């Protein structure tokens, strides 16, 4: 008695499952060597900044609203918080950007005025305006998923670039290039 189907299949068919298995192993090895990007990027690049209006976060400085971002000037909108350690790390870079003539505006996430004041006194205050986002409302509206994050916003209020994480010293020229590009 011979099995009816067995004589029809060619001999290499026997190795097919093993080949598929080796293929899977290769796929797994590739996946382990190239981990997926963990950052959640904003899907709003190239789109206008949503409508928002935030009260002032720091004493003696105005708050921030969408209307402040559509006057024809390119700006860097920095999402930060006094409790955020990398935000202190990027402070010198924001100061450098300000010295280069960039208007830096801030959105302070879940921050107390007194703690923010200490943070600004210690790390410098590069901001022309700081809005208090105590419920992360503007953060969500911008598609931002953490602190610090920076958005280049052109003169028409369109988001042109999102930088996730602190701006490191070597990234300042790149940010300046993005700002110049947004100004064209």
């Amino acid at each position: 008695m011979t099995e009816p189907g067995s004589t029809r299949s060619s001999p290499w068919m026997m190795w097919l499952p093993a080949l598929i298995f080796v293929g899977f192993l290769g796929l797994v090895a590739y996946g382990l060597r190239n981990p997926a990007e963990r950052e959640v990027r904003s899907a709003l690049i190239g789109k206008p900044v949503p409508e928002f209006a935030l009260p002032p976060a720091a004493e003696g400085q105005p708050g921030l609203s969408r209307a402040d971002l559509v006057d024809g000037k390119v700006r860097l909108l920095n999402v930060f918080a006094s409790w955020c350690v990398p935000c202190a790390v990027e402070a010198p870079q924001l100061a450098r950007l300000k010295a280069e003539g960039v208007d830096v505006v801030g959105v302070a996430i879940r921050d107390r005025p007194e703690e923010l004041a200490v943070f600004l006194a210690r790390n410098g205050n590069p901001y022309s305006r700081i809005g208090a986002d105590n419920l992360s409302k503007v953060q969500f509206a911008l598609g931002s998923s953490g602190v610090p994050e920076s958005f280049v916003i052109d003169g028409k209020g369109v988001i042109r670039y999102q930088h996730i994480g602190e701006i490191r010293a070597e990234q300042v020229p790149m940010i300046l290039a993005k700002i110049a590009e947004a100004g064209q």
Partner: protein
Amino acid sequence: MIRALLLVLAMAFAAPVLAEGSMPPAPYAYRQLDDPAKEAKAHELMETLRCLQCQSQSIADSDVPIAGDMRHQIRTRIAAGEDPEAIRGWLIERYGDYVSYAPRVTSATWPLFAAPLILLALAGSLMRRRLKRGDEA
């Protein structure tokens, strides 16, 4: 020894200093809506939204402040009568499909939905051929 223990204890209690600010959680981060039907709707949505910071948890499961703020926003918007799927759409518009745990059929995901059907059809036709051959023998 006691000193070391005290230090460990002190560090345990100092942890909130390293937490994300000293602001109390958003009003509706941990408070349910008064209307049970609306709360059920909100909770169902929260369980299928990804926490942006702790990405393998849903915002219903996570205690990080950013998840609390998102729960607050979802509860207040549902209380205001907004449709849960509209809120999901609003978030996908901002964060992409990754923020939602509810899979959608898109140009990138359709093979996932089609593959089982194709495999089933293939298995069905193989089976029929085998059974037919069995009859002939």
